[in-house]
C-alpha cells in the first residue's frame, strides 16, 4: 500500500473541516464514540446539523471559538492507499500554517465556495501550493447544492481559475464539483451532477500518480551520523547513516564526498534487516565506503559528475513566521539537510503580495506571514540544489539564535548573480 500526503486549504466557511470530516466518516475512519462526542457538542451549541468540523478541531480554544488554530494531522486509509492529511486553517496565521502543511505534501486540496467563486484566498492558496512545488492541485468547488448543482457555475469557476493559474507553476490540476455537507462526489459519484464526467474526490486521491514526483536522477545523500560501534563484534565497522534525499545509490557506485572532494566507491548499503543492492528516497540506510575518509555529519555524498551547488551565498524565497520583522543585517541559524550554519541576511529584494502576485521592491523588511526573496551568506558552505529541482536539498529553515524559535521556511532559487 502506498502513502499519499495531502494538505487541505480553505476556511471553515468553505466547508473544509466538513469535507475532512466527511472523508473520514464516509471512509469509516470515524469511530462511534468520536461521533457521539461531536453530536453532543453540536447539540450543546445549538447547531442545526451535526457539525463534522468538530471531528478535526482538537484544542479547547478551537472548540470554543469554532475556528482552527494550528495545522492538525488526520489519518485515513482505503484498501488502496493510506492518507496523511495536513489540515491547515484558512484564517489565523494562514500563510505560515499553509506553508508548514504544504512542506510535506504530495497534493493539495483547495476548497472554493461555489457561491463566491475564486477569491483572494483561493489565489493565495494556489500560489503557496505552487511556491512549495506541490505537484498535484485539486480544486474542490464545494457547496454545489447551494447553486442548484449548476454546470454553468462550475465551468465559470474552472475557467476563471485556469486563467489565473497560467501564472503559476502547477504540473497537474484537477477540478471536482462537490457538496461536502451532503457527500456529493466526495467518496461516491453523485447522482445530482450527471454532467460531471470525472471521478469522486476520494477516487482521485486513490488514483493520482505520485511515483514520478521524486527526484531519482541526482544522487544526494546527506550524512546524518557517522556509525562507529566501539564493540568487539563490530571492531572495524565504519558506516554513514542517513536518508537518501535524491537519486538512486547503488553498491559499486563511484561517489564523491563534499566538502572534502575525496572520491571512493560504495562498498555496501546496509540496514538492520540486511544488505541492499540500492537505495532511493526516502530510505534511511547506512552507506559503507571502500576507503576510510574523514567524513562527518552534514557532509554530502553524491556522484562525481552530478554535484549540488557548493556555496555560502544563497538566493531564496522565504516565508517569515516570527512576530518581529526580518531586516537586512539579521544573523540567524540555518538548518539545511543535516547541516547547521549561521546566516547573514544580505539583501531583501522584494516582498511578494500573495494575493496579487505583485512584487514590492520598496520594502525594507519582511513581517509575519510575508513571503519575499532574500539573499543570505552562510558561515560555512551548504551543498544545495534549486528547490524546484529537489525539495529536500533545496529547502532550509531559519532559527532565531536567542529564542531558538523557527522563524522562516526557505526555498532556494539559485546562487545570487
Amino acid at each position, binding site marked *: 500500500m502506498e502513502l499519499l500526503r495531502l494538505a487541505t486549504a480553505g476556511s471553515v466557511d468553505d466547508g473544509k473541516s466538513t469535507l475532512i470530516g466527511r472523508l473520514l466518516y464516509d471512509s469509516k475512519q470515524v469511530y462511534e464514540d468520536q461521533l457521539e462526542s461531536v453530536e453532543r457538542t453540536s447539540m450543546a451549541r445549538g447547531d442545526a446539523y451535526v457539525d463534522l468540523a468538530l471531528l478535526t478541531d*482538537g484544542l479547547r480554544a478551537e472548540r470554543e471559538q469554532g475556528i482552527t488554530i494550528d495545522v492538525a494531522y488526520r489519518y485515513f486509509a482505503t484498501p488502496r492507499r493510506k492518507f496523511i492529511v495536513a489540515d491547515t486553517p484558512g484564517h489565523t496565521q494562514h500563510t505560515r500554517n499553509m506553508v508548514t502543511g504544504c512542506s510535506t505534501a504530495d497534493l493539495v486540496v483547495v476548497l472554493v465556495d461555489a457561491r463566491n467563486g475564486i477569491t483572494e484566498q483561493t489565489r493565495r492558496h494556489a500560489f503557496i501550493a505552487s511556491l512549495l512545488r506541490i505537484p498535484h492541485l485539486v480544486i474542490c468547488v464545494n457547496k454545489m447544492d447551494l447553486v442548484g448543482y449548476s454546470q454553468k457555475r462550475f465551468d465559470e469557476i474552472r475557467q476563471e481559475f485556469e486563467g489565473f493559474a497560467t501564472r503559476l507553476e502547477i504540473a497537474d490540476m484537477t477540478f471536482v464539483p462537490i457538496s461536502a455537507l451532503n457527500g456529493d462526489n466526495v467518496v461516491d459519484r453523485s447522482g445530482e451532477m450527471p454532467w460531471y464526467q470525472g471521478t469522486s474526490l476520494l477516487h482521485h486521491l486513490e488514483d493520482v500518480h505520485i511515483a514520478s514526483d521524486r527526484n531519482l536522477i541526482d544522487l544526494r545523500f546527506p550524512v546524518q551520523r557517522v556509525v562507529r560501534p566501539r564493540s568487539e563484534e563490530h571492531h572495524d565497522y565504519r558506516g554513514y*547513516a542517513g536518508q537518501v534525499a535524491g537519486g538512486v545509490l547503488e553498491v559499486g557506485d563511484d561517489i564523491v564526498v563534499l566538502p572534502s572532494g575525496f572520491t571512493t566507491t560504495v562498498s555496501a548499503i546496509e540496514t538492520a534487516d540486511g544488505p541492499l543492492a540500492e537505495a532511493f528516497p526516502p530510505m*534511511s540506510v547506512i552507506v559503507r565506503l571502500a576507503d576510510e575518509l574523514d567524513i562527518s555529519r552534514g557532509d554530502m555524498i553524491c556522484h562525481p559528475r552530478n554535484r549540488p551547488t557548493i556555496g555560502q551565498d544563497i538566493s531564496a524565497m522565504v516565508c517569515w513566521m516570527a512576530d518581529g520583522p526580518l531586516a537586512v543585517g539579521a544573523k540567524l541559524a540555518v538548518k539545511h539537510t543535516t547541516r547547521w550554519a549561521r546566516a547573514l541576511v544580505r539583501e531583501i529584494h522584494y516582498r511578494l503580495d500573495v494575493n496579487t502576485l505583485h512584487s514590492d521592491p520598496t520594502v525594507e523588511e519582511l513581517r509575519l506571514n510575508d513571503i519575499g526573496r532574500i539573499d543570505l551568506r552562510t558561515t560555512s558552505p551548504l551543498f544545495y540544489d534549486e528547490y524546484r529541482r529537489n525539495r529536500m536539498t533545496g529547502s532550509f529553515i531559519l532559527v532565531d539564535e536567542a529564542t531558538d524559535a523557527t522563524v522562516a521556511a526557505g526555498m532556494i532559487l539559485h546562487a545570487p548573480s
Partner: protein
Amino acid sequence: MTYQLTHLDALESEAVHIIREVVAEFERPGLLFSGGKDSAVLLHLATKACWPQAVPFPVLHVDTGHNFPEVLAFRDRRVAELGVRLLVASVQEAIDRGEVTEDRSPGGTRNRLQTHSLLRAIEEHRFDAVFGGGRRDEEKARAKERVFSFRDEFGQWDPRGQRPELWSLYNGRHHAGEHFRVFPLSNWTELDVWQYIERERLDLPSIYYAHQRHVFRRDGMLLAVGPHSQPREEAPDEEVFVTTVRYRTVGDATCTAAIESMASTPIEVIAETAVARVSERGATRADDRFSEASMEDRKREGYF
C-alpha cells in the same frame, strides 16, 4: 523497479530518520517504555536506527504501581534482551514521599500523578530529549503535536506557541533546563502499529491477545478483577463474570479496560482493528472520558 516504498516502509524510514536526528543532536536522550505495544514498536525502531550499535540511551518506565504482571514481565524481558538500561520512576514512591496526593474518590486514578514522576525523572537524569510512543491519531489534542515537541523548564506544552515544523528539518535547539519530547510514531495509526507488529514478528505482552479473565462492567467498560480493581460493594451492577478479552491499550490497571475479543494473533487483531467502531482510547481509557479536553490539560502540565 518502481522505486516506491510501501506505507510501512515509508513510516519506518521516517521514524528511523527522526531517532537518528535525536541521537546526532542531543546530549542525553531517553526513551519512554511502558511495555505497551506502541513503546514496544518504538524501542524496536530505536534498535534499527542505532544498529549495528546497541541502543545507547536508557529507557524510562513511569510506574504507577498498578501494573499488569504480564506487562512488567515483558518489560524486563525486552530490556534484558537488548541490554539497555532500565530506569523506573515510581508514582508510589512519590506518594509515599508526600510529593503528590492520591485521588481516593471513586473513579480516581493515578494517571495524572504520572506527570510529576515523569518530570522529576527527566530532571534527575537531565534528559534533553525523551522519545514517546504517542501517535497523532490517538486523540484530538495529539493531532496538533509536533514530532519534536518543545517543553519549557517546567515541562509544560504550549499548544498555541509551538514551533512550525517544516519538511523533515527538525529544530531541537533549546536552552539548559528545557527539553524535547520526540514522537517518531506521530504519523502511525493503530492499524499501522499492528501491521508492523505482524510484519516484524514483534513480541508483545500476552494480554494484547485473547485470553479468559474475570471481569466486571463499570461505565460501560470491562475492568479486570485484580489487586488494583475490584467491583464496588455499593454498586450491585458491577457483577463479576468470566469472558474472553484482550487489551487494546495497556496503562494503569485501574483505568485500562479490556474489550471482548477472540483475536489471538496479530493477523486476527488487524482484522478486528480494521473494522473497529470505537476508538482505541474511547474503548479502553476511563481517564479520557472526563472531558473533551482532559488530554490537552494533562499534556499542558507535562504528561506523555
